[in-house]
Structure formats: structure tokens, C-alpha cells
């Protein structure tokens, strides 16, 4: 069969292939137009918006506490930190100081959420690259965290577990013991996974030197969270602008040196250990007292604007709140970490192999719910 069409196809040097939006390794509904020359990637163009629900428009008709469930659905693997950012913004604009017990509860839940989010990242990232085993271990541990969430607020994924002014519920009896039991056994699990992956030759071949981005470029492209720290920038919102009571606990910010996929892997693994360290300190010091500040029944922040951000597992998650003094936000804009981080994807994969594309998507740890909002 010597059709001209086939010949032209075989001789073609450049090809454009559509990757996703239903491809499982795109972690949702991400579509990429990939221009390749054989196995080399010449360029990538992300096409997003398949999950756009107009969250920022919906915010404008909800009361402030009514906005919280909408934030659950942005980064649905890290609903707690989404809640934390929103209530923090409203509290900042109103000048509310939350009770110390509420602040500590928020930190415990947020760090548990960081663990859960990093577990999803590790499970799927390793699975994409071909390591199937960690997937099962990670989801087993994540399930224990979701059990703790369920016991606290009744929901496992879309937690809706904070309110403006504090926390909606007191802890159930024995929750702290179960939480402590979980974090006591957790570091050994992290060590297990590291034993599977860190020195694994296949893992290193697939991740070392893949998706490199320098520190200067990372700042230029606005990367935050582990992708920024993997490039060697020691920068974390919890240290730079401490919210809740992060200034009272001790923890380190791990950084990488080469800015490649392997370093970002190491950074996240160490972050899990640091989160355990934070939770342990919080459980030790958990103060008694109310979990809710005295706030008015109807939340009406004054006229003005404020930006408040938290260190979400994916990076800096910020809320820019403009109030006109009413009971609904005039404008509530989300600074999504994943959206900004994804923008650097073409920069990171240009010149690499198609197989590396999957590794880099995994290492950016994107959630399309937050990208598209």
C-alpha cells in the first residue's frame, strides 16, 4: 500500500496530537495540544475550562458562610485549606480574632489535609510513571484521614468544616486520641514508601532531570508551593505571613536543589513529615476554650478590600475579597495555585520526551476543579 497520504504521514517531522481531556493521566479534564517531533516535545498548549462552574459568580449571591461549600469544590482533594483561606479573608476584613482553640483545630485539620492531598499526589504520580504499589498504600492512609474528617464534620471530601469566626463543632470524644494514633504510625509508612521509590532505579530514571525549572524562572512564572521549593526557593506562606497560630509551632521548609521532578518528590515527602510534626505539637498544646468567636449572626464585613492567602498543599491559595458592606461579597476572586502552576507546564516539558509529559503533569500536582473553578 503506497498511498501518498501514508507516505506524507511517515515523512512528517512535526505532528500535533491531542492529549486528553479524557486521558487518565491528565488528572481530570485537562486537554493538551502537543506538538511533537517523533518522541520529542516541541510545544504544549494546555486547553482548560472543561470544569468551569462560575464559582466566583456564585460567590456574589451567597452569604459569606454560604460561600464555604463552594470552595470545597475547587481543589476537591484539599477542601479544608480552601475553607481556611476563605474564612481567613473574611475574618481579616472584619478584624475578627478567632479563639486559640479554633486556630489550633484549623491547623490540625489543614495539616491532615496536606497529608491527604500529598497522598493523592504520590499515589497518582507514581501510578502514572508505572509504580503501582504505592497507590494502594497511599489510599489506605488517606482513608484514615478522611475517617477523621468524617468524625469531625460529617463529610469526607467536601468538608465545609470552618465558619467565619472559628469552627462549627467541638471535637468528638476521643478524636485527639485517634488523631494521635494515626500520626504515630504515619512516619513509618512514609519511610516505607521512600524505601520503595527514593532509591529505585526506575523511579530515578523517570524523574531525575525531568521537568527542570530554575529558581529565577519559577518566580517569573509565579510558581508557589512544592514546585517553587523544589527549585530551591525557601518560601512558604506559613512562614512568610503566618496565619492561625503557625508562628507558635516549629517546622522546617524543605527545599530541593535541581528543580526537577525528583526534587519536588523529595520536597513533598519531607513536607509530610513536617506536617506530622506540626500536628503533634498542636495536639500537645491544644488549648481549652470556645471554638467560635463572638460574631454577629449576619456576617457583614465593612466596605473595603482585602487579600488573604494560605499555604494550600498545591501552593499559595489566595482570596481577594471586595465588600460593599452587604451580606454577600461584592467580588470574591480566587488566586488558584494550580492554575498558575499549570501555566509553567510548556516551559518545563519543551524538548523532553512524550513520556516525561505525564511525569511533569503529576509533579505539578494539579486539580482541575481549582484550575477551572
Amino acid at each position, binding site marked *: 500500500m503506497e498511498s501518498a497520504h501514508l507516505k506524507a504521514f511517515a515523512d512528517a517531522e512535526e505532528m500535533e496530537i491531542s492529549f486528553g481531556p479524557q486521558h487518565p493521566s491528565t488528572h481530570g479534564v485537562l486537554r493538551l495540544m502537543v506538538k511533537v517531533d517523533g518522541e520529542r516535545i516541541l510545544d504544549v498548549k494546555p486547553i*482548560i*475550562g472543561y470544569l*468551569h462552574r*462560575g464559582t*466566583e*459568580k*456564585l460567590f*456574589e*449571591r451567597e452569604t459569606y458562610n454560604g460561600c464555604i461549600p463552594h470552595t470545597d469544590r475547587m481543589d476537591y482533594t484539599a477542601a479544608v485549606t480552601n475553607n481556611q483561606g476563605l474564612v*481567613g479573608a473574611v*475574618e*481579616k*476584613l*472584619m*478584624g*475578627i*480574632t*478567632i*479563639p*486559640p482553640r*479554633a*486556630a489550633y483545630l484549623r491547623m490540625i485539620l489543614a495539616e491532615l489535609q496536606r497529608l491527604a492531598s500529598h497522598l493523592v499526589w504520590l499515589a497518582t504520580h507514581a501510578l502514572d510513571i508505572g509504580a503501582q504499589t504505592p497507590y494502594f498504600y497511599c489510599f489506605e492512609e488517606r482513608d484514615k484521614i478522611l475517617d477523621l474528617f468524617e468524625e469531625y464534620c460529617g463529610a469526607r471530601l467536601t468538608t465545609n468544616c470552618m465558619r467565619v*469566626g*472559628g469552627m462549627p463543632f467541638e471535637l468528638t470524644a476521643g478524636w485527639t486520641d485517634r488523631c494521635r494514633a494515626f500520626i504515630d504510625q504515619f512516619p513509618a509508612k512514609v519511610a516505607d514508601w521512600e524505601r520503595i521509590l527514593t532509591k529505585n532505579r526506575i523511579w530515578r530514571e523517570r524523574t531525575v532531570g525531568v521537568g527542570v525549572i530554575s529558581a529565577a524562572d519559577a*518566580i*517569573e*512564572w*509565579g510558581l508557589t508551593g512544592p514546585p517553587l521549593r523544589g527549585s530551591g*526557593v525557601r*518560601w512558604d506562606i506559613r512562614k*512568610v*505571613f*503566618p*496565619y*492561625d*497560630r503557625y*508562628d507558635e509551632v516549629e517546622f522546617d521548609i524543605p527545599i530541593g536543589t535541581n528543580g526537577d521532578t525528583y526534587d519536588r518528590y523529595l520536597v513533598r515527602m519531607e513536607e509530610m513529615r513536617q506536617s506530622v510534626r506540626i500536628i503533634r505539637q498542636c495536639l500537645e498544646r491544644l488549648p481549652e476554650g*470556645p471554638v467560635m*468567636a*463572638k*460574631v454577629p449572626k449576619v456576617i457583614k464585613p*465593612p466596605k*473595603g*478590600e*482585602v*487579600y488573604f*492567602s494560605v499555604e494550600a498543599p498545591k501552593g*499559595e491559595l*489566595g482570596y*481577594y475579597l*471586595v465588600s460593599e458592606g452587604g451580606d454577600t461579597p*461584592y*467580588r470574591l*476572586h480566587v*488566586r488558584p495555585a494550580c*492554575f*498558575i502552576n499549570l*501555566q509553567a507546564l510548556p516551559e518545563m516539558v519543551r524538548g523532553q520526551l512524550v513520556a516525561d509529559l505525564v511525569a511533569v503533569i503529576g509533579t505539578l500536582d494539579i486539580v482541575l476543579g481549582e484550575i*477551572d*473553578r
Partner: protein
Amino acid sequence: MAEEEKGAAQASAPPGAPAGDAAAPPKAPWEDKPATPVPHDASAHPAVAELEAAVPGAVAEAVEMAGQVTVVVPLERLLAVCQALKGQLGYGFLVDLTVVDWPGREAGRFDVVYWLHRHRDESRLRVKVRVAEGQEVPSVTPVWKVANWMEREAFDMFGLYFGGHPNLERILTWEGFSGHPLRKDFPLEGIDTGAAIYPDVFPPGGGPVAGGGEE
């Protein structure tokens, strides 16, 4: 957060406002009335003075609220200000870029808001320009690469045109979509989008309505 907030609230309260607390027994701040931050003029703030020195006449207005400084910059000076902010003043990280719609405002319908970070002293600065309907905003992508998608989102959601942008197309809605959803006059229940995507299947006005319709 607690410390920072208390400090911010005290700093932003006008002198004399929190008086009378001295005699009352001290209450925990979470049991007391919230110390609401009050916006006040920030022309003397070091960050503003620095910018004014770098680009004379750039600051039209400066306000501080809850410890965050906002400077309003004339639209025609925007690019020069951004270049100075990044180059001379070291704001290397554009954290966020967004738009606020104020229909019917005389000074221009839209606020374009830039939120900058400087790693040297970990300080942040909000820069605002006021833009009238149909007016073009110079793109800041030559200054901060990260602005690319942010400006695309602003274009998609508000219909603001960023001049000099390398690839200004819709990003969250689809290419055939008409309207800009985050404008205040865009209906919350959505618009008829069927005709825009399948004009041969749905006659204009006859397509499915996003958000349910009226039945």
C-alpha cells in the same frame, strides 16, 4: 494571624477610636467586638514613597487597609510603573491579577488589580488602574510572564482588552461563547448559549439555557 491582625487593626484605626478600653476589664479579643480595620490614607507609607521616587507622579491615590497598601495608578503610566516596580523596586512576583466591575462609576467601569510580592523584605503592594468600558489596558506580560493566563482570564470574564498580549483568547469559557460572565450585568442564571455553538441546530434564542430556564 491573630498577632498580625491585631497589629493591622491598631495601625489602621484612626487615633482616638479605640479609646475607653483602658477602664473596662480586659476581654479576650474573640469575646470582644471585632476590631474592624479602617481604610486610611497611605501617601506617607515607605512603599508608596519609594514608588513615587522611582516614577514621579505615578501615584494618584494611596490607601492602606488591614495592613495592605493599595496605590491607584493612571492607566497611561501603568507599564512604566510596572517596569519600575519589577526592575528598580524588586517586585519580582506577580501574585494575582484580577478585575472588579463597578457599573456606572464615573472614574471608569473597571478596576484592574495587580497584587505584587517582593521577596527581599516579603512585602506586598496592590496596584490598581481604573479602566473605562472599551478602553485598552497595556498587557504586563512583557514584565511578568505569569500575567499571561491571568490576563486571558480577565479578558474572558470581563471583556477587557489587553493590548500587546501574545495570545489573548478565552481561557475558561469556550471560543464560541458570547458575553463576559463576571460582569455585573451578566445574568446569574446564564444566557442562551445553544445558538452560539450550534447555530444550524438551534435558532437564535432557541437553544438550551444554562442554569435551567424558566419552566
